[in-house]
């Protein structure tokens, strides 16, 4: 038992390790921002399952790149974008989308496993694509990941308002002349990029812990359009950075730590949300006492 906890949490020479992985921590924090922000829209657009589908094709792209000796991040992005666009174009309706994701997912995973099986190099690299490997990402790739993350964040900021409108209220947005379909495709591209970056760090299997769980947790405790993304970012950054800090000691993959922290935050938020609901503090309704009991519609003014 001591051995196990020693492996899980080993903080010898921690200071030196911390210096070594400093860049990874920055990258992790940045990725947390990406995951928290985009997660809010993933939830609103009901794309949780699609995220998983995209990540499997992204994994296939990354492992193909590994096999053919080209840039893994580039391969990952290519796979991501193909999947995101397929899902975006073909899966406009939720039911169709789920079928397409369900078809793409095993195909992508299968391809990825094939490429990895053919890959003669170190198996740690292979495993990393599935379960995360931020510590082994070199500086050049880290630079690429940071660049893409910034592109995603800027893209989201630019389209935030119309994207929110189109996400929660598509019919009215369309009637008001918003290019809802184009916005949807643009969002899928950003999502594809975000998934491709996340895969390098938490791995294909665990992307949801970064792109969905923090936003889902935030939405349990607030319905404010400002607090929701802020909390989601906070949760995602805490999960990422916390996960990295805990993982480096034992030299273990970071993803189990990231996913566990992320999960615990979600559980906590559910409990808080449940208590808010019981005490009726949710919704911030300000009904004057005289009218609190009756319907709030005035029949004539």
């Amino acid at each position, binding site marked *: 038992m001591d051995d196990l906890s020693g492996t899980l949490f080993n903080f010898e020479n921690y200071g030196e390790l911390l210096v070594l992985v400093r860049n990874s921590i920055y990258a992790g924090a940045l990725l947390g921002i990406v995951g928290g922000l985009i997660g809010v829209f993933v939830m609103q657009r009901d794309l949780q399952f699609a995220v998983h589908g995209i990540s499997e094709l992204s994994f296939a792209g990354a492992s193909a790149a590994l096999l053919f000796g080209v840039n893994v991040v580039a391969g990952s992005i290519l796979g991501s974008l193909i999947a995101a666009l397929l899902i975006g174009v073909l899966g406009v309706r939720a039911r169709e989308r789920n079928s397409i994701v369900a078809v793409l997912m095993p195909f992508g995973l299968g391809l990825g496993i094939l490429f990895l099986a053919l890959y003669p190099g170190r198996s740690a690299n292979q495993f990393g694509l599935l379960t995360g490997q931020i510590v082994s990402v070199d500086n050049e790739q880290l630079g690429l990941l940071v660049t893409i993350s910034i592109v995603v964040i800027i893209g989201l900021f630019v389209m935030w*308002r*119309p994207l929110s409108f189109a996400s*929660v209220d598509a019919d009215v947005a369309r009637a*008001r*002349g918003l290019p809802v379909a184009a916005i949807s495709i643009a969002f899928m591209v950003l999502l594809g990029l975000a998934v491709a970056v996340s895969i390098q760090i938490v791995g294909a299997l665990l992307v949801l812990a970064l792109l969905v769980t923090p936003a889902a947790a935030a*939405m349990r405790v607030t319905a404010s359009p400002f607090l929701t993304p802020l909390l989601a970012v906070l949760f995602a950054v805490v999960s990422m950075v916390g996960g990295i800090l805990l993982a480096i000691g034992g030299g273990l993959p970071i993803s189990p730590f990231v996913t566990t922290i992320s999960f615990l935050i979600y559980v906590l938020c559910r409990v808080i949300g449940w208590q808010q609901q019981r005490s009726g503090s949710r919704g911030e309704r300000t009904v004057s006492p005289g009218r609190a009991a009756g319907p*709030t519609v005035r029949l004539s003014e």
Partner: protein
Amino acid sequence: MTPSPDASILSLRQATLSFGDRPLWRGLNLELKAGEFLAVLGPNGTGKTSLLRTILGQQQLTSGTVELLGGPVGRGSRDIGYIPQQKLLDAGTPLRARDLVGFGINGHRWGLPVSSRAMRRRVDEVLESVGASDLANASVASLSGGEQQRIRVGQAIAGNPRLLLCDEPLLSLDLQYQRAVSELIDEKRRELNTAVVFVTHDVNPILNMVDRVLYLAGGQFRVGTPDEVLRSEVLSYMYDTPVEVIRSRGRVIVIGAPDGYGAHDHENHHVHGDGGHH
């Protein structure tokens, strides 16, 4: 800017819409003036919603023309306010009543949703005018159906539209809310001189507000005042079967109307207001 009273807002000329060889309506001529309230009635499957989709540029006419404010229709328009059916939002959807109204003003604008003081004031005004000031910061998902539709009216009028399209906005509301929401729509169109196209399966909640009725059934249409259209002879002719229209205590009750088109139509019997309950 108040549009001149006789400005044509919406104009359909010889408009025909068919799906395959099944015409929904043929040779439809319709001019809608500013401030006019048109109810679109008829059983399901007769192209009521397709008419709205045509006006929104989401549905091409088989033949004929449709014009909005004297020009061809685009894919939606900022001159249009749209009130959809009430639908449930997922709990936790980060959207307050004021955000929904705000979308009606600047939802098309790029950037982060930081609102100026002027914008906040405008939203407050709109909420006040639909009697929903006390719901401003409530999450939309937490509101009742009637409250949501009240906010929807605010959202639709917030951008000062020339044309208000309402797609069954009273569906799934109880009678009290049906009256409150339709009165609100009526009040606002008079205030803003907005033309209204109101699609509904039950004319009764809006009977005393409508200027004209467009009745769609059996691949045909009739346009006229409620008194001209909602008569036994007219509907019997359109349905090609004896139909009786009874006027009782300010309500219209249609007896014996078969399904227009679409045998899958199960909501039809209650269609012409045998009470408006669900």
